[in-house]
């Protein structure tokens, strides 16, 4: 393994991770400095609905496509969402597995699973780029960061897919590009929309707390009869 690849797999990733963690911490402190709203009234709604249940329901919402009309009516989009995020998880895991547990990737079944997931995420990424460009509403709400983040992730999936076998002996280009992209991704994330996963637990927590306290969550949506 070349010095350059070793550096990209270790020192570069560690530095990028540290930067990301630092910026995240600053971001969280910033968010927490805003006052929290307070509900003084007595709770409303049915007894199955409490603050706690609302919060749990809110966090679990995304895994229950039937519970949200927008997911229920567009199940394919929901699957795409799932594949895309599984791809992100797999590609991030890869950046830890390659330097610290490369033997895992000697198991054919595991490399196949990683490659299938990441390739599927890459295809979804392409579909999402086309969708964002071709649908007027999405164009109207997109900023340069929205396009760039999506393209960045899709390109990253491409290189990740080829890096899964970890065969640096046969050439280091894909591995080097993947690790440099991962480092860039880690540093860029807190500045971009990709940081949404940092906010996700908070926004869903607050919505769940309010809606649970008011008897709206767990949602009792449309019922027949």
């Amino acid at each position, binding site marked *: 393994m070349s010095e350059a690849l070793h550096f990209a797999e270790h020192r570069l990733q560690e530095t990028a991770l540290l930067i990301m963690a630092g910026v995240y911490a600053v971001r969280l402190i910033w968010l*927490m400095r805003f006052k929290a*709203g307070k509900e003084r009234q007595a709770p409303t709604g049915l007894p199955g609905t409490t603050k706690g249940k609302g919060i749990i329901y809110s966090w679990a919402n995304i895994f229950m496509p039937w519970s*949200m009309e*927008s997911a229920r009516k567009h199940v394919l989009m929901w699957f795409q969402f799932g594949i895309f995020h599984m791809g992100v998880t797999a590609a991030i895991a890869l950046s830890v597995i390659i330097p610290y547990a490369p033997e895992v990737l000697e198991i054919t079944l595991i490399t196949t699973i990683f490659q299938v997931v990441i390739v599927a995420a890459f295809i979804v990424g392409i579909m999402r780029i086309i969708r964002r460009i071709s649908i007027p509403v999405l164009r*109207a709400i997109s900023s*340069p960061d929205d396009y*760039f983040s999506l393209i960045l992730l899709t390109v990253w999936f491409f290189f990740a897919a080829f890096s899964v076998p970890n065969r640096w002996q046969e050439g280091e280009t894909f591995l080097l590009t993947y690790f440099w992209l991962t480092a860039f991704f880690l540093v860029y994330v807190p500045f971009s929309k990709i940081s949404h996963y940092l906010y996700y637990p908070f926004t869903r927590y607050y919505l769940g707390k309010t809606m649970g306290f*008011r008897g709206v969550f767990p949602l*009792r949506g449309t019922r027949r*009869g």
Partner: protein
Amino acid sequence: MTNKKRSHQAEVLIEGMAEKLNRQIVGSLVACVHCGNCTRSCHYVLTNPDDPTFAPAYKADRIRKIFKRHFDWTGRVFPWWVGAKSIFTVEELEELKDIVFGKCTNCRRCSINCPMGVDYATFNRMMRGLLVSVGIMPEGVAVVSKDQWEIGNQMGVLPEDYIDTIEWMSEEMQSELDDPTAVIPIDKMDADIVYTINPREVKYDPRTISDAGKIFHLAGENWTMPSEGWDMTNFGLFSGDDALGGAVAGRVYEKAKELRAKKIVISECGHGYRSTRCEGPNWAGMDVEIPMESSVITMLRYVREGRIKVDKTRNTKSYTFHDSCNNARSCGLFEEPRELLNLVVTDFREMYPNRSENYCCTGGGGAMSMSEYTPLRLKSAKIKADQLRETGAEVVVTSCHNCVDGLTDLIKHYKLGMEVTQLVNMESEVNKGSGFNVSIPRRSIALSSNDFK
């Protein structure tokens, strides 16, 4: 950097935003990923499919841009990259007004359809309040807010007119029930219930007051109506003015406390219920000890306890139920009205979607008072009209005065030929001195509702 000069109003609005931002709102402002999932949950989008400016995320971004430019460092450092943009001129503020008042009814349907939990309706209301604070608002909002500040109710009903109407309804009730003891008590001390109403009832629909009075009387309730602090509606909810919201709700709480009432009952009104029961204590900064409930829950309890008897065979028409957004999506009140309705009608037809997923009557968020947006409102009402038509019902029942007006308007516009009524009117109808005893199905879910505690 732009050299545009910022108007004084824009300056004040940005300063005000700093004070209004809380963790929940900031979370919603930073978390949007522009996925567009919320788009088709909005009735404005469904009726204007070719115009992307109606999309919830697009409308939300008009506010988000300002937030990012001034409060989020990504927007301060790379404004163009993350779509941050400040606001400068009065014209820009006017445009923002047309979005937050004219293109959104704060119905919260997009909020429950956002995978990230972005609650756009909440920060849309915040922006309404900020615009109101710099004097930029639809004329109707200014007029109604002024009335509620100055006269104490949002329809400018004078104290003597209110008392006259109550006395008149009291006499009507007496003659209808042929019972000299059937009166509407005013300012009775130590009553079990103080009944608060919507000024629309005094001005346009006094029958709902006597209908409620009949029910309280027949149930043998120890009740009263207050001479002041009787308006449970609250334009602060629509205008985003928390100070007005707190002052109006505070009047209701203070009067009930002065009368040593044991409970505040709120007549059927979605925004009134939400304002008085769910938001008022927060706006007023008061911990209100007197319990509060919707009159729907009160009436349901009477039927369950056998204090009033109902005969559903008297209502032979076909009925559907419209959920008010404020009741269903902000206060969890949707099963009790259905249970009550099923006790008083034989032919109930559910509307789809319903409960927390129901569409706004399209007159919500104060839209009925903003005449400049009426054509847009009626166009967006097509989604509700289709929903109503599909039920094939003759009558639509709702627990909200505002929805009564919104639905009446769209039924006329789309020539649906349906009637609109409220539960209080129906229940009073099936009660008219009837000696019928009907069996009352009990549902455990509603029996232990938080409001029954």
